[in-house]
């Protein structure tokens, strides 16, 4: 637990510093690299919070694809010299996030969250860490899942199962959205004349 706390605070300091760098640094290329660092650190947070599948997805999609896209965009538009200029809205642009941050912190601290009961913590960890529904009898015994009915439930609970069972409609909608975005991006990037 103590080790996790240390990792958490190190990651927190790195992510806030890198995020500040992204919005403050004038050289856009460096900002893009700092953004990749933010993505990696967020993947670290996901591992800390037993969301391993999301951490892998984060590294694949954000670090692998989106950062590269940003770096391409920075290089292709050649405004690196001019850089990351601020606009004329500095005061409202600082005030609004500051107010929002204050409100969010107050809500996070004062709300009475209902934590997961200690007896179920290991079971929840097991369910959240897995993304497919294969789990051995020994593991189930260790987290105290003994009856056949309970075993069935824990076995069935997986991210992939949930995606194609309870959330199948949004899943399909997102697939169509991705396809539409792909075609739209192609049409936009290709231009009218060529």
């Amino acid at each position: 637990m103590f080790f996790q706390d240390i990792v958490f605070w190190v990651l927190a300091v790195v992510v806030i510093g890198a995020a500040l760098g992204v919005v403050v640094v004038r050289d856009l290329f460096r900002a893009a690299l700092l953004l990749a660092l933010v993505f990696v650190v967020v993947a670290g947070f996901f591992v800390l919070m037993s969301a391993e599948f999301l951490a892998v997805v984060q590294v694949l999609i954000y670090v692998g694809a989106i950062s590269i896209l940003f770096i391409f965009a920075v290089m292709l538009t050649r405004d690196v010299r001019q850089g990351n200029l601020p606009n004329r809205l500095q005061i409202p642009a600082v005030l609004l996030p500051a107010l929002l941050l204050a409100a969010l912190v107050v809500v996070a601290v004062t709300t009475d969250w209902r934590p997961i009961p200690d007896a179920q913590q290991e079971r929840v960890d097991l369910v959240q860490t897995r993304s497919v529904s294969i789990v051995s009898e020994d593991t189930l015994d260790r987290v105290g899942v003994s009856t056949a009915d309970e075993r069935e439930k824990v076995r069935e609970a997986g991210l992939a199962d949930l995606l194609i069972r309870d959330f199948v409609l949004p899943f399909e909608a997102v697939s169509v959205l991705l396809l539409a975005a792909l075609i739209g991006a192609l049409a936009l990037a290709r231009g009218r004349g060529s």
Partner: protein
Amino acid sequence: MSLESMLIVAAILFCIGLYGALARRNVIAVLMSIELMFNAVNLNLVAVARYVAPRGIQENIASVLTGQVFAVFIITVAAAEIALGLGIVFAMYRSAATVDLTEATQLRN
């Protein structure tokens, strides 16, 4: 490491992203700030899924995964958004030879 500290870190990340989206002139910098906000929201969702007991936890253990499912959807939407956003940036750069938001006035009048 607790739910509150995780939520506060995500809130700080979100507000930095919001500041960047409001205060920058370069379109690419604004898109980067929007990605920061998406990541903060994902952190929030996963943290709440990790620490807070959902209503149906006794009947259905799979309900503790709902936050992660939402995060998967947000990652997908963010990828679509960034592909389209950069497509628009390239189109704008080709027609106006700039990526400065204050000069993006072609739609005026």
